[in-house]
């Protein structure tokens, strides 16, 4: 549905987006990750036709967004960053306006507005003006606007920003539900959100795609992935770490916790695989420890995220202070 090819966007000398390519098909939920200022919003603005690209091409449903914007825009629902809305309009009026511009009239319009209101639980504030809404409601109003025409493509710029934990949960399950028959791109800072909702993740840093894969694949890139965490009762953490670290397949072992007569140690393998977990279990048995827990780590997305994007951020930080 969405095809982004060698996208470049320059603001003056600065390249906000630098040679970004990816594609999103129907049924996919693509999580867009990256530090602030990485070019996430700029990319989304180009996909939705707000910014023309400096070079490269974006097609939505086969229509070139820069050359044939109107049919492309018809397919897209867009929630911009900070969820803007006309301050002096009521929620109902605002959604009606969005439906008008989407070409909905009469009964179809009424039904569409009603459905969007229901989906985003806005019944209670329907006749309140937007400037009187709380941040959460404002966000949901703008989200309702983006889905009023049941678009094939949804572009959501930080859709859960400013929502409370319950609302976040609702928004995520809504995105997951809608993702079944739409192509969705959403950006976020919250990594657990990505694990929970996305079928694929793109990490973008300083305008370039630095990682692209399923959440599981990315987690697998974590140093921690495949490591084994063992909790043993009655043995000191350092003793456990020494013994397990000396195993032939182990790269190193580190004690994590040592309290209340039980210690937890994480052992990193030289090569990942189920065999390593078994080897650790055997070693623990051979040592005669009372093993309380033995867990193979999946890896953590935030580790991967930091590993990929942090060095640059640090460099930039030095640049600023110099």
């Amino acid at each position, binding site marked *: 549905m969405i095809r982004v090819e060698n996208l470049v966007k320059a603001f003056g000398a600065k390249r906000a987006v630098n040679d970004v390519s990816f594609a999103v098909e129907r049924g996919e939920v693509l999580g867009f990750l990256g530090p602030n200022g990485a070019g996430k919003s700029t990319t989304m603005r180009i996909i939705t036709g*707000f910014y023309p690209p400096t070079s490269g091409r974006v097609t939505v449903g086969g229509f070139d967004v820069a050359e044939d914007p109107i049919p492309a825009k018809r397919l897209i629902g867009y929630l911009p*960053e900070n969820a*803007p809305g006309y*301050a002096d*309009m009521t929620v109902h009026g605002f959604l009606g*306006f969005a439906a*008008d511009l989407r070409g909905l009239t009469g009964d179809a319009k009424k039904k569409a507005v009603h459905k969007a209101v229901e989906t985003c639980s806005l019944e209670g504030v329907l006749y309140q003006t937007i400037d009187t809404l709380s941040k959460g409601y404002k966000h949901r109003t703008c989200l309702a606007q983006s889905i009023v025409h049941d678009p094939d493509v949804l572009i959501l710029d930080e859709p859960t920003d400013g929502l409370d934990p319950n609302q976040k949960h609702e928004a995520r399950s809504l995105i997951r539900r809608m993702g079944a028959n739409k192509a969705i791109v959403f950006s976020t800072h919250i990594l657990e959100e990505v694990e929970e909702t996305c079928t694929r993740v793109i990490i973008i840093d300083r305008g370039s795609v630095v990682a692209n894969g399923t959440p599981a694949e990315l987690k697998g890139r974590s140093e921690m992935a495949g490591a084994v965490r063992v909790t043993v009762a009655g043995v000191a953490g350092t003793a456990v770490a020494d013994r397990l670290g000396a195993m032939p397949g182990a790269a190193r072992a580190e004690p994590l916790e040592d309290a209340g007569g039980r210690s937890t140690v994480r052992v990193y393998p030289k090569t990942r695989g189920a065999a390593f977990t078994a080897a650790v279990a055997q070693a623990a048995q051979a040592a005669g420890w009372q093993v309380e827990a033995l867990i193979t780590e999946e890896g953590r997305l935030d580790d991967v995220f930091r590993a990929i994007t942090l060095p640059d951020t640090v460099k930039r930080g030095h640049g600023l202070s110099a």
Partner: protein
Amino acid sequence: MNAWTNIRAIVKRELGGYFSSPVAYVFLVIFLLLTGFFTFTIGNFFERGEASLVSFFTWHPWLYLFLVPAVGMRLWSEERRLGTLELLLTMPVTTAQAIVGKFVASWIFLALALALTFPVWITVNILGSPDNGVIFAGYIGSLLLAGSYLAIASMTSAMTRNQVVSFIVSVMICLFLILAGFTPVTDLLVRWASPWFVDVVASFSVMTHFDSFQRGVIELRDVAFFGSLIGFALFATGVIIRSLRAG
């Protein structure tokens, strides 16, 4: 047609925006009070002893100078400030449709304000028998004048997200358009510039063209002047908005 439904939706929203806030009512009251004050007190409507609305229309270029930019200043700067510009322009509407829709809505609002001055027309018809054709031409001229100022306000509004800046810049441009043909200024110009130059400058002025409407003459070249001024300013609005997005 699709373009019309889009423009109509935008016009409807904009007009709704005016009347859902006190802005519209404050503006209407002030406009009517000021027209009354200028017509009857400063314009010496009664002392003139003639059945015409000359003292009414004479003041419109000056009155609009401040009131029309006040109506137009929020057109685009508000959208930029709220971030709704991004929303509007990612809808399946063209920039041109959005510009025309917003302009037409404000123009309708100004037309409404102008229409509400009908008691002046009734008064002059009760007191005497004026040439209603001349008065009609005057109203047409006044509406075109308001439209021209409004298009300029639309242009300056697109330049900035600050409404005050937008207001001041459009007042300055409108003031220039008045002064270029204002008799004291043209008299000054004549002293050092050749007459043809003075004529060229004066022909850019709204005063020169507005005057003929007041005399009851609707001439094609005057209508074309205001029309092209509106067209140019709206086109410039489009260029400014495009450059905003191009970054």
